[in-house]
């Protein structure tokens, strides 16, 4: 059963130095508040996993919490580059970072295999690309037809952290809108935290809503506005201006560092 806890207590309990950590949310429901708390608690040597690193991992990599990044699209959606990720990969600032990259289909299948507790996933893809030489993908023949396919290894993060609109008193969670790979990430991980916009007496099931039962989650923490500048459909709106602002601010190491100190590292947890 999921335990309700404060964000700072939940992060302190779940995330340890050196862990592989997946903070998921595909453009929508990105768990910014939880990621900020991980940074404030000074975690180090993390393997950060996310299909689309987005501004959140730009921040985390920029302050140096990660030794490795596993991803499939490291851009600022619709705006351009993630300048802190680029600086780490191109110049090793503030520290060198190892990368492991896949396609979206590869990452999605890796999470699904992890959720199923299978060792790998089978798919069509990667063929003819240079990704094959640079990432963990292997050819595999269909045992029934002989068709050439590829296998990608399952993802099994130590910790998954996702954000949702609601949880009930028992810690059952519901999210709606773009569901990304959040359910897969929680089920693939060893430990999990879900931050929510609000805690309600009873979940009202929504069309297209994804329910994650309390008993597969370790902690639920209330974090209103916890996905901003991403958004929680029906509760908050995506702050597109912030994504544009970040493109300018994050180009400069010093401006980035000052902004992080003033707005993230030097302030208290929101919940």
């Amino acid at each position, binding site marked *: 059963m999921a335990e309700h806890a404060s964000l700072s207590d939940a992060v302190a309990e779940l995330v340890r130095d050196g862990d592989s950590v997946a903070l998921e949310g595909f453009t929508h429901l990105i768990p910014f508040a939880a990621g900020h708390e991980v940074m404030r608690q000074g975690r180090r040597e993390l393997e950060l996993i996310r299909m689309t690193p987005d501004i959140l991992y730009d921040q985390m990599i920029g302050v140096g919490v990660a030794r490795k990044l596993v991803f499939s699209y490291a851009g600022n959606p619709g705006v351009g580059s993630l300048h802190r990720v680029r600086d780490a990969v191109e110049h090793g600032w503030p520290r060198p970072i190892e990368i492991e990259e896949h396609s979206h289909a590869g990452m999605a299948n890796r999470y699904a295999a992890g959720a199923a507790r299978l060792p790998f996933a089978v*798919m069509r893809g990667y063929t003819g690309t240079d990704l094959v030489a640079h990432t963990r993908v292997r050819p595999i023949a269909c045992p029934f037809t002989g068709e050439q396919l590829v296998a990608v290894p399952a993802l099994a993060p130590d910790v998954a952290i996702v954000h949702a609109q609601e949880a009930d008193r028992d810690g059952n969670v519901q999210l709606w809108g773009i569901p*990304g790979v959040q359910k897969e990430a929680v089920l693939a991980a060893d430990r999990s935290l879900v931050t929510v916009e609000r805690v309600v007496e009873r979940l009202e099931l929504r069309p297209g809503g994804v329910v994650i039962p309390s008993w597969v989650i370790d902690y639920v923490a209330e974090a209103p506005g916890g996905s901003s500048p991403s958004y929680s459909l029906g509760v908050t709106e995506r702050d597109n201006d912030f994504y544009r602002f970040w493109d300018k601010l994050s180009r400069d190491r010093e401006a980035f560092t000052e902004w992080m100190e003033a707005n993230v590292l030097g302030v208290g947890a929101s919940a």
Partner: protein
Amino acid sequence: MSATTPEHATSAEVQTVVAARRLKDARSVFIGVGRPSTAAILARMVHNPKLVLVYESGTIGAKPYHVPLSIGDGELAETADAIVSVPEMFNYWIGPGRIQVAFLGAAQIDRHANLNSTVIGDYDHPKTRLPGAGGAPEIATGCKEVVVIAPHSIRTFVKRLDFVTTTGNRTTHVITDLGVLEPRDGELTLTQVHPGVTAEQVAEATGWELAMADELRVTDPPTDEELSALRELAAR
């Protein structure tokens, strides 16, 4: 077509209008953000109101009124016929070929329409680290027909890619701000130039010796309807 004022259309507008025309008879199109998204929304406005827009965020049949900044903007989710998870999007919809046309962009393209969106320079010591593959490799092998939308310059149209992110086997058209290229015997060939553009200009903006079709078509200039719809959309 109605009276036209091509001199008033920018090259970017012509490119978007030509991309939208490709979707006149399409049932469904897979799109990323930027110009492809603008073109697909324009196609729904002026050519094909039933066109199904699919974004990799999982929104199927989105009907955005505004051009979205990201592929996961709230408006896409609120107007979609269905919203699916990322594994479902790739395994049930894109992989089996259920989406007819895909619009892709890239930082580099070669004469076989292979694309690079991963890195400029050496992989381990990159000059410029680009965002990476995203959905492109499997979109380009899953969708029936791939249309590449790219700015025409020798930086983009290169002899040799620094990295093959996506293969060009299914590419049917490359629509640039100068003209249209189509594969002929496996090699991209200039088949169409936009109004006021010469074949020499296109050749100069291409990093390899560009093959030319025997009969080069000239793009029909944007109609008043196309241009006013596009400008109205951009102003929303």
